[in-house]
């Protein structure tokens, strides 16, 4: 177990290192680093001074080393637009994105599992078929278009929910959250639902497949033969077995949700990391772009690691395999 974890950690660190190389090459070799790292308003003398200060006259490997050691100390440059450390900007925007992503995960589980159970238990009913047909839409509709339609229906036509911004926030542990106020929750409803849509379909399909797979198994027959109530068989015995793949997939999808929040945040003007990166790309605020990419890669590597660990804890078969 320890050797497995150690190997997994080294692997994660290696992926992280590879990504720093890719981002570094992306910024410094494909793009023009002078353009990228020095404000376009600088004159010739300032430019030359900045080139020397940034070490752009040094060989490439030495530049990379500077970039890497800066990154390790949490220094990824200053934003041109806000004139603040890029990392600090991202840290400020992160709670908004995290809160949106976590709400979306909760929604996908709360909506997806019951619908999936229903479709799995009654696969040939009209309701079951409608659910399955709808789940195809959830997969293939473009997120941004669904977001626009949600705004059109619920904000413009019906006027039920607000369509832009985060609403009032309240502080908890020194961070501002929307979910602590009623109006904040109302602001979160549409973007969270929009972000969750693909995952609702995914959880629903996984649950349905799990139910269909588990129902004919011996342990279900045995539980029934013992006279356990049908509800208990489904909600305790079967559900427990289905949850393992769902936890893995949902866990892995958290990263995907944070990445896809880029789209949802742009549609709903939600002031999170995703909106920050799109704005930064549009005004070429490259230090923020680099910082965002490094943060999100780190996030991904960590999420993959956690899911792997959780999986070992949840599924004894994996644990036993690694022991040998």
């Amino acid at each position, binding site marked *: 177990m320890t050797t497995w974890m150690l190997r997994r950690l080294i692997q994660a660190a290696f*992926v992280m290192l*590879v990504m720093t190389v890719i*981002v570094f090459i*992306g*910024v410094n070799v*494909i*793009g023009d680093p002078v353009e990228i790292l020095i404000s376009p308003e600088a004159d010739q003398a300032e430019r030359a001074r900045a080139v020397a200060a940034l070490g752009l006259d040094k060989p490439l490997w030495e530049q990379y080393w500077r970039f890497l050691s800066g990154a390790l100390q949490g220094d990824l440059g200053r934003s041109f637009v806000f004139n603040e450390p890029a990392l600090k900007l991202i840290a400020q925007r992160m709670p908004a994105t995290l809160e949106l992503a976590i709400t979306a995960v909760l929604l996908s589980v709360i909506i997806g599992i019951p619908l999936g159970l229903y479709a799995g238990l009654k696969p040939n009913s009209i309701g079951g078929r409608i659910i399955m047909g709808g789940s*195809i839409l959830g997969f*293939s*509709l*473009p*997120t*941004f*278009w669904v977001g*626009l*339609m949600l*705004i*059109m229906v619920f*904000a*413009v036509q019906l006027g039920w929910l607000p*369509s832009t911004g985060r609403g009032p926030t309240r502080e908890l542990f020194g961070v501002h959250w929307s979910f602590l106020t009623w109006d904040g929750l109302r602001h979160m409803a549409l973007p969270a639902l929009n972000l969750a849509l693909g995952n609702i379909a995914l959880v629903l399909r996984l649950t349905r497949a799990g139910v269909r797979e588990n129902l004919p198994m011996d342990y279900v027959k045995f539980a029934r033969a013992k006279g356990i109530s049908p509800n208990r068989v489904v909600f305790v015995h079967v559900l427990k077995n289905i949850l393992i793949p769902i936890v893995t997939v949902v866990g892995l999808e958290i*990263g*995907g949700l944070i*990445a*896809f929040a*880029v*789209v949802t945040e*742009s*549609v709903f003007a939600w002031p999170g990391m995703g909106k920050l*990166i*799109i704005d930064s*790309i*549009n005004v070429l605020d490259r230090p923020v*772009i680099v910082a965002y*990419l490094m943060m*999100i*890669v780190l996030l*991904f590597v960590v999420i*993959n690691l956690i899911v792997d660990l959780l999986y070992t804890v949840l599924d004894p078969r994996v644990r036993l395999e690694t022991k040998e």
Partner: protein
Amino acid sequence: MSATSQEAAPMPPKQETPFRRFISEYSESPVAVVSFIVVVLIVAIALLAPWISPQDPYDLAQLDIMDGRQPPGSRSMETGLFFWLGTDDQGRDMLSGIMYGLRISLGVGVGSAVIACIIGSALGLIAAFAGGKVDTGIMRLVDLQLSFPAILVALMILAFLGKGVMNVMLALVIVEWARFARTARSAALVEARREYMEAAKCLALPQWRLVFRHMLPNCMPPIIVIFTILVARSITLEATLSFLGLGVPITEPSLGLLIANGYQYMLSGKYWISFYPGIALLVTIMAINLVGDQMRDVLNPRLKR
């Protein structure tokens, strides 16, 4: 090694060519047939747009700012042109805009999928055939790539390169090659153990001939299926990137960019500028996906009756 009796059986009678069998099995689902017709229609519209659209939406001489933001079903005050789907803020006929937008959306989607298919399948076949370190190397790269969501990888590439049709296509190719590689490799691993491959090896044919002439045609069914699905996916991704303002430039608007242009007017109730391009995008994606689904059902040997 024991299941070879069926393959060794003589060719079926002439009427039952594999292609005909495919057609008849495919036509069993009416939804799939309708989807196929829709796809053909959309491709035809995209190809013929310059000849069948009511207006050339990018010829400024034909536009009149006075016609801007007209609702669907109104008539131009200057030229008398009938706007079936309304006009955008420049006074462009939306129907013509959508026809031209389809050209770019389909072109980028299909083009990138074709390139990704060629590169990815070749690498997948090489990985399966070479084995050992080459295989591990290529598949590690595939795993690494697939552990990051497509939108993120595309975002990263476009952040480095800037917008443009070519850059979007490059980003889509980089996002998609890995899926082709994985599919081609798993198909090739199955085929490599077949008897015809052994026979071909015994003829001492050169390696490239073994892989590309003998193995590749038999690996095609799963690759074709993943190709259709990835065409739909790359059209979606391109539309998303263009909507975010990172994709195609304003001079070559795809459906995604048309939707983005109408976004600001939606809150004031002028829904049609975004809505109809959205419907066109939706119909395209759904039709391609449904065709892909049916092809998967027909071509998948595990589901064979």
